């Protein structure tokens, strides 16, 4: 999904503000939102982590940027609970005394059509290109590396393919690879000569590259 969540490389943002001796939670509701996010997935098993990440991606861009992290956490989790019929939105709004903004519905036809790669196709040192995909549903290949060529520096174990598991598809596992892109390839006039970005990418997102 090409949404506001895919922030890597987006310009126009100001300085990073670091709070000294920052507490884990600034207010009690943040702790509750965190615990509900984990408990719904681990205890209730009402949804998986990929559905959860995708629910946050579906927030309206303006709400996403204005909301604190734990408001995004609560919004995504609640959206899924309402969509699955476990909670009722009108009831939540009555109890909370106002509008309870949720994320937008899942796109039509969100399921990935990437061919499953049950065997690892790549190994350390291989040159690979990230496919220029732009699926309607969940995807974890950041836009900033799509279409670019990098080098596999590590092969990680197999993990559930998020593009299908976020949409109720069959659970399939694929290796992910740590793929290193030179900063100058990604941002020609900005990247440092010795700098690079390593992105952790599922096998299906990649194709062999010669150069």
């Amino acid at each position: 999904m090409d949404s506001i969540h895919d922030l890597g490389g987006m310009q126009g943002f100001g300085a990073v503000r670091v709070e000294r001796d920052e507490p884990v939670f600034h207010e009690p509701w943040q702790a509750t939102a965190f615990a509900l996010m984990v408990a719904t997935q681990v205890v209730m098993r009402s949804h998986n982590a990929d559905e959860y990440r995708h629910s946050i991606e579906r927030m309206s861009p303006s709400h996403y940027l204005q909301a604190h992290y734990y408001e995004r956490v609560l919004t995504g989790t609640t959206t899924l609970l309402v969509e699955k019929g476990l909670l009722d939105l009108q009831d939540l709004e009555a109890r909370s005394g106002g509008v309870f903004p949720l994320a937008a519905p899942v796109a039509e036809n969100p399921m990935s059509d990437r061919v499953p790669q049950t065997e690892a196709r790549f190994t350390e040192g291989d040159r690979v290109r990230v496919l220029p995909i732009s699926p309607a549903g969940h995807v974890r290949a950041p836009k900033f590396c799509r279409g670019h060529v990098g080098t596999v520096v590590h092969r990680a174990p197999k993990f559930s393919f998020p593009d299908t598991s976020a949409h109720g598809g069959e659970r399939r596992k694929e290796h992910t690879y740590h793929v290193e892109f030179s900063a100058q390839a990604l941002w020609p006039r900005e990247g440092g000569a010795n700098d690079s970005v390593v992105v952790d990418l599922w096998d299906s997102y990649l194709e062999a590259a010669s150069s």
Partner: protein
Amino acid sequence: MSDQKTADIQRRTEAVKDQLIRKGLLAEEDVQHFLDLAEEWKPENGARVVARAWTDPEFRQRLLDDATSACAEMGYTGLQGEYIVALENTPELHNVVVCTQCSCTAWPVLGLPPDWYKSPEYRARVVRQPRRVLSEMGLELSPDIGVRVWETSAETRYMVIPLRPSGTEALGVDDLSALVTREALIGVALASQCER
């Protein structure tokens, strides 16, 4: 959204929790359980891993080969610690961790991430302007040192092993671990000669 006002975030959170408990979908103890866990996840854990790696060459090698089990043998395992990779800084290479698409972190060794790590500012900028972001955060790196930014886009969770500060030869593991902050474990600071 209608023209009506958005409900207070505290009331929205309580409404969700109350309804899940009222409907028997969750118990109060379930919520408390994860809050207790969150207390156990803290950067002091990662700091102890780093201090041990600095002082125990065999452990350092195990950590580089398989950080998941090396951290687990110290008791640091669980949610978001299923596959940990340790990134060792060298005099030539500095590692930095980010999650541009959400805010994934190795909870058992780093703790839940701070607000700056979750901010659009950090997520957007550190992959594109890492030296400038680090500099604004107080870390000036020589152009000779390469910067490698690790994007947590899949299931690997990273921790940085900072360089051991010079002049710390006499310190034991406890004192050494006090030199390693959460920021150093993410890679936006160095291990400091001054204690945390």
